[in-house]
């Protein structure tokens, strides 16, 4: 579904991603694990067209390099950014409406789906986004992403800074999103939880992919155990 070949990217003179190649298969949950600063978020920003890069990203056989972010959303890739980035002075329903910016016709149907996934948002629909707790903002950001009817949903650090209760809710929702037919690309520092929730995974270190495999295999890998799980 998504095929990345030889991707290099950075900020100014600093190289962050060094010839990354990876692929995402339709229908799977793929996670990219790694420490802070490994380049995971930069990778997602390259896919969604926010930063420039060299190399090739093919999505359903279309080259994405050179496309503007809004055209990439149109192709069916929705990126839920790190730090949630909800619209603070808009209500929950307005935030969700913005998520459905490109397909306002399906707004009602997607709204029902989002509310069934996160009933909390239905209760809070008139509250301003900026006044909600971190966990509520995170589920709002995920729901807002789903409103765009993605084929591929990219989640950047969805569990960062959340209470155990919301972390569990977020990981549970990833399973349900997968069941609804959406492919998920998950970037996480929470290596253990994310690999457990995934079909396959990659491990990134300082801008390169160092390991790849099935989620369960990676959890058993001695390197992963030592470096990330502290076992």
């Amino acid at each position, binding site marked *: 579904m998504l095929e990345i070949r030889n991707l290099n990217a950075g900020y100014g003179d600093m190289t962050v991603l060094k010839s990354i190649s990876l692929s995402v298969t339709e229908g799977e949950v793929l996670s990219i694990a790694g420490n802070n600063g490994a380049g995971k978020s930069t990778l997602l920003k390259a896919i969604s067209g926010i930063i420039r890069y060299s190399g090739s990203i093919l999505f359903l056989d279309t080259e994405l390099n050179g496309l503007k972010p*809004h055209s990439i959303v149109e192709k069916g890739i929705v990126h839920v*950014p790190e730090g949630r980035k909800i*619209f603070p002075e808009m209500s929950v329903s307005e935030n969700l409406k913005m998520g459905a*910016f490109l397909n*306002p016709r399906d707004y009602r149907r997607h709204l029902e789906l989002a509310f069934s996934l996160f009933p909390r948002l239905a209760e809070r629909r008139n509250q301003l986004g900026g006044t909600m707790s971190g966990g509520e903002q995170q589920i709002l950001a995920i729901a807002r992403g789903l409103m765009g009817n993605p084929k591929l949903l990219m989640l950047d650090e969805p569990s960062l800074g959340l209470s155990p209760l919301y972390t569990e809710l977020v990981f549970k929702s990833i399973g349900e999103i997968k069941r609804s037919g959406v492919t998920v690309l998950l970037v996480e520092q929470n290596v253990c939880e994310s690999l457990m929730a995934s079909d396959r995974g990659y491990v990134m270190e300082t801008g390169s992919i160092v390991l790849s495999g099935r989620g369960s295999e990676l959890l058993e890998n001695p390197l992963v155990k030592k470096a990330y799980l502290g076992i």
Partner: protein
Amino acid sequence: MLFFQSLISGILIGGVYALAAMGMSLVFGVMNISNFAHGELMMLGMYMAYYLFTLLNIDPFLSLLIIMPLTFVFGYVIEKTMIDRVMDHPSENQILLTVGFGLIMSNSALLAFTSDPKILTTSYSSSSIALPGGISVSIPMLLSFLVTCILTAALYLFLAKSRTGMALRATSQNREAAQLMGINVSRMSAIAFGTGTLLAASAGAMIAQTYYIDPFAGHIFLLKSFTICVLGGLGSVIGAGIGGIIIGLAEAMSSAYLSSDWKDVLVFILFLAILLLRPQGLFGKKGEQ
């Protein structure tokens, strides 16, 4: 009675200030750019109203129907061809660009229209309504205020309810997230700049009967709009609306009770006091740049 007279004149002129400042605030909110050519865009509106009246005999308030679409397109094109290029550049470059663009506009006007001040006089320019107690309300100012109220309500509805208006607000609240929703933010910038231009030019057209029209007539309004935006909180359109009325009142009161020479001094004292006491403005958020 002096008090009520000043109160009414202050609110009426404040409404027009508010209109111009809302345009500047919208541009700042969506694009994060201070438009130093804003005064020249008002000047453009003044000349357009003047020539539409003297050449084609179109009433200045009626001519808004022509001025608004034309200046929107003008602003849209200026954003697409010039300002879009500096969007990702440091703010000094953006300031140089808008200041330079303003200089080109005012000096082009100087070449085209000379520096002789023009006066737009309609049949009702100096008429007024007499209220009990010797208070008089200028008809052109009253009309400007009413039109300002209509335009403000229209702007509010546009931003609150329409799809494009909501996308403008989303872009102003978080540009990156707006992009990730599939919003074409560079198009939003052009729409914001076009709308800002339209609002500035409309304000200019409406005060064309009250002020002398010359190529540099916009300067003082640039400073006022900027003060109002800071007072209301940069990027807050509602703040700019209320800030405009406050500045109008402050000016009218200081002219009445001190002397008209003091009115600009008072405005800038107010400006400094806000920066010292509440730098985020009345409706701004703390900690924002």
